[in-house]
């Protein structure tokens, strides 16, 4: 019982990172109807910039803030310079560009940070010595995990305030719902999309730093699996539902953690365990999708082409 709680807590904090990146995916999907295949690599690039700044002596939090600001600009530039012109070409072109961007950013990271192939040491954002934990009903919850979860929850809360309570959030929701009508009420749809990309890039920068902090390492390959699991989380929750992304991310983290710690003396433990945790997680998502084709909380509106 104690262990179960422990696994759930661990899962929640990893899952919260998935949830955050998934939110970035949802923000772009709602605006454009496309999945940003480069989301993980955008996060990777920002995280490497953070690492570089920190390496040059900038305090970690300041480094994250600077790199998030750069990400904001970079995300906007990606939209203005690549995605929007591509969108004018054909409906599918942005997807191709995103895949090209995925490859380009990944190798650019390798070019600019040659040692990132093997992994660069990244400082933890929170105390992470063996003794740094609090005990909750007997389960040991590491401070760094609590910290990550807290940061994500606060970020998520801020995002929800942005979506629901601010004018720009309202504009984002109108664009997601019906871009033509949004223009008709005077929403500058292009600028809103640009903002969405910028926001997604910032989310990536924060998520990337959190992930690297937990791993105390950042390498070229580290964001790809995060992207995949976040994409899975967003799919599970429904690609156009921010709330769904959060719930999807957290549940995916918990599922992974539970499957990864499947007891050895239980049936089929030969097939369920740490090595197959992702397989099992994906199978569960597939089953959910078969029952609910647009995710748990996604709207089943006719897809935009």
């Amino acid at each position, binding site marked *: 019982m104690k262990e179960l709680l422990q696994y759930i807590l661990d899962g929640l904090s990893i899952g919260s990172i998935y949830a955050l990146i998934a939110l970035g995916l949802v923000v772009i999907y709602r605006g454009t109807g496309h999945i940003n295949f480069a989301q993980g690599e955008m996060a990777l690039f920002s995280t490497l910039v953070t690492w570089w700044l920190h390496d040059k002596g900038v305090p970690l939090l300041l480094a994250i803030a600077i790199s998030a600001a750069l990400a904001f600009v970079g995300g906007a530039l990606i939209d203005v310079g690549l995605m929007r012109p591509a969108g004018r070409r054909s409906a599918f072109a942005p997807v191709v560009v995103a895949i090209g961007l995925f490859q380009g950013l990944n190798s650019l990271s390798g070019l600019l940070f040659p040692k990132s192939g093997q992994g660069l040491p990244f400082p933890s954002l929170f105390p992470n010595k063996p003794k740094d934990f609090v005990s909750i009903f007997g389960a040991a919850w590491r401070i760094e995990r609590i910290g990550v979860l807290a940061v994500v929850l606060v970020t998520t809360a801020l995002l929800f305030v942005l979506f629901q309570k601010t004018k720009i959030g309202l*504009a984002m929701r109108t664009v997601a719902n019906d871009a033509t009508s949004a*223009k008709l*009420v005077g929403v500058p749809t292009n600028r809103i999309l640009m903002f969405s990309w910028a926001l997604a890039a910032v989310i990536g920068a924060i998520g990337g730093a959190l992930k690297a902090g937990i791993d105390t390492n950042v390498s070229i390959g580290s964001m790809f699996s995060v992207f995949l699991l976040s994409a899975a989380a967003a799919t599970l929750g429904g690609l156009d539902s921010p709330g769904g992304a959060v719930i999807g991310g957290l549940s995916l983290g918990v599922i992974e953690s539970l499957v990864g710690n499947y007891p050895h003396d239980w049936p089929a433990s030969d097939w369920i365990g740490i090595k197959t945790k992702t397989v099992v997680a994906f199978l569960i998502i597939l089953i959910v999708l078969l029952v609910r084709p647009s995710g748990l909380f996604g709207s089943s509106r006719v897809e935009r082409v």
Partner: protein
Amino acid sequence: MSALLTVRGLSAGYGPIEVLHGVDLDVQEGQVAVILGANGAGKTTMLRAISGMIPRTGVVDFNGQSIIKTAPERIVSLGVAQVPQGRGTFTDLTVDDNMRAGAYVRHDHEVVSDLALWYETFPRLKDRRSQKAGTLSGGEQQMLAIARALMSRPKLLLCDEPSLGLAPLITKALFQTIQRLNEQHGLTVLLVEQNANLALDIAHHVCLLETGLIIAAGSPAAIASDDAVRRAYLGA
């Protein structure tokens, strides 16, 4: 009286297809102008061209200022609001959010009081203010579309077939509302309508659009007395 909207030689279309072939139109401040025309004549296209939603050429002056090169969202903030054909409400947003989205171009602090004003005018919307717009009835959505357009405090309201799909009684009420807005709030209206009889009742100025050309324009009385028009549009 001066023309709030002046259109000269306006041409527009979709890609290679030209639908409007140089139309002229004047809408006087404080009046209700009505465009009549058969299906496919280009009425919707004309409104879209005025509001900048499609590429156009010619002259479009609003309030003495050329808006031919202006982006649609700028045109809205200049004071032209459009109720598109098929309403175009944000179905996933609540009624309240729809109304607030209508006020997007405004930067003053009277949004809340305007909200109250239009909820008073359309009490049915007030009862449903936290309901998603997609769950409203057709008539309610039409009201919402109009109320949303009014939230931008427009000088000119472009209204595309507001009676589409509404029951006769509701249509009548809707036209009364439009007339009231015109008379009490001094709102200038450019109305596209199939329901010629009702539209003529509230119109100050009428023009007939046929395959992308204005073929007749004048006062409602003059238009209504034209035999050809009577046969084609008034069913008598």
